[in-house]
């Protein structure tokens, strides 16, 4: 337990560089900023429509995957590149603890950033509309999407130096092109899992409104929870197996 906490907290510290926090912090404020800008130019459009536009077109499909990709790919990838992986694996601790702790550290940072963005957006929306009911659902949706993306990108960062490129290809080609065309694959799309969790917790009218933003194929909150949990467990298991079997230098 002590070792797991030490790895998790060190991972968080590694991933929270000052420059990175400034850049990502500003990026996370972008949806809220755009929402405010639209208040000036598209005042006639309903606040909820503008919010859902931000959520379904900017926050989930772009911001969450890109921020999480960069954070999660570094969690194990930087250790491998910097030669510090030997520091971790040559210790009397099971490889599963390393995999779980690195995953945990990456989730804390990625989800923390994405929740910050979600809260900023829904607070701006709340100030304008007087409704605060979307703060928690969007934060939870952002957290779910962050967990699923982290599950994919932590092992990816370990496998390849081009994790960011491969991750972007996954997001833009697979998720935003292939899955958009084949809605049956939507349960394999992390941001759609997050969007489903958001829709599942949000008031009924939000779910109905989301249909206009391509949310017709969204699953239930329970299904989102199941997929998030399953993908995270599979990812930790796969990372553990790789750490056990693969040559690490």
């Amino acid at each position, binding site marked *: 337990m002590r*070792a797991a906490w030490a790895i998790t907290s060190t991972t968080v510290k590694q991933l929270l560089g000052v420059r990175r926090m400034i850049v990502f912090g500003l990026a996370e404020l972008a949806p809220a900023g755009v929402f405010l800008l639209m208040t000036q130019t598209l005042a006639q459009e309903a606040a909820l429509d503008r919010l859902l536009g931000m959520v379904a077109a900017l926050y989930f499909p772009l911001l969450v995957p890109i921020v999480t990709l960069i954070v999660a790919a570094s969690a194990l990838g930087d250790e491998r590149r910097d*030669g510090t992986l030997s520091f971790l694996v040559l210790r*009397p601790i099971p490889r599963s603890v390393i995999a779980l702790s690195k995953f945990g550290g990456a989730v804390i940072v990625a989800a923390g950033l994405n929740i910050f963005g979600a809260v900023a957006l829904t607070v701006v929306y709340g100030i304008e509309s007087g409704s605060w009911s979307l703060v928690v659902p969007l934060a939870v949706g952002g957290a779910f999407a962050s967990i699923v993306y982290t599950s994919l990108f932590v092992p990816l960062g370990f496998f390849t130096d081009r994790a960011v490129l491969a991750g972007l290809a996954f997001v833009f080609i697979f998720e935003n092109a292939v899955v958009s065309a084949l809605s049956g694959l939507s349960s394999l799309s992390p941001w759609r899992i997050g969007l489903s969790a958001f829709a599942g917790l949000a008031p009924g009218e939000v779910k109905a409104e989301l249909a206009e933003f391509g949310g017709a194929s969204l699953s239930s909150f329970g299904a989102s929870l199941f997929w998030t949990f399953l993908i995270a467990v599979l990812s930790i298991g796969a990372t553990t197996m790789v750490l056990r079997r693969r040559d690490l*230098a």
Partner: protein
Amino acid sequence: MTTNPALVESPTVELDDASKWFGQKVAVSNVTCSFGPGVTGLLGPNGAGKTTMLRMLTGLIRPSQGSVRVLGVWPRTSPSVYTDVGLVPEEAAVYPSLTAREYVRYAATLSGVADVDEATARAIDTVALVEPADRKLAGYSKGMRQRAKVAAALVSDPQILLLDEPLNGTDPVQRLHLISLFQRLGAEGRTVIVSSHILDEVDRMSDRVIAIVDGRLAAAGDVAAIREAMTDIPYRVRIESDSTRVLAARLLEEALVHGVSVDDGILHVETGDLAALGLRVPVVAREVDARITSFQPEDASLESVFRYLVRR
């Protein structure tokens, strides 16, 4: 009682016919050797396979063929053995965002050390890094980082210490300090394996040498024993005398002398039996009325031995 100089009586680390290849490239080839208490130098030119061998010993990479055992087990499947193993890798392997104290403390925590603070302070003190211990490793020189890595390796008080080029980047004072530290750890009965391509370093700190050339075990034992085993290569002796040419001519008549040369007034003699030559030269010198002022084997040093090994 083993007669193979590559093997030791009470091994803590063993390689049995171990090979490692990466695609077509053979990095280590059929190496059988063992290591026990004391300092063993793993010697070889750059690219000889020393780092690959050390990585196999730690379980970081698995042998393509043969086996590796540390305290009787293959470490990859028995991670508990890492309580007794410390590695100082050649590459950077430090976290720049941590201070040296945090780094060593992190190592202590992961190694399951009971009193983390005490062990951290002791390890930092051992490598004489107390004063800058609370500065970030990003600002450390290479030599200071090396010492921080040594402290992290020592913090769990390991029985086996594997050091890959540990003196790289250290200044002469740090170098002396680390060499005497490794010698002390070896004298305490720990297995200390030091890889280096710098002959002088290995010569100064090792009781025993394992020489690796092109991934193969080229020689093992202490330097004198390795040199003695090279029966196909004559010894060279440098003799200074007041009658060099006369002495050279007379020595050529001796059966044990393979050849002589005179260079800048210095006589160089080649022989297959160094001890016999040592006894014979004073006798011959008396016969020709020459006075010997210096008699020095030229190639009994580790450097000469190693030069021969690489040339073979």
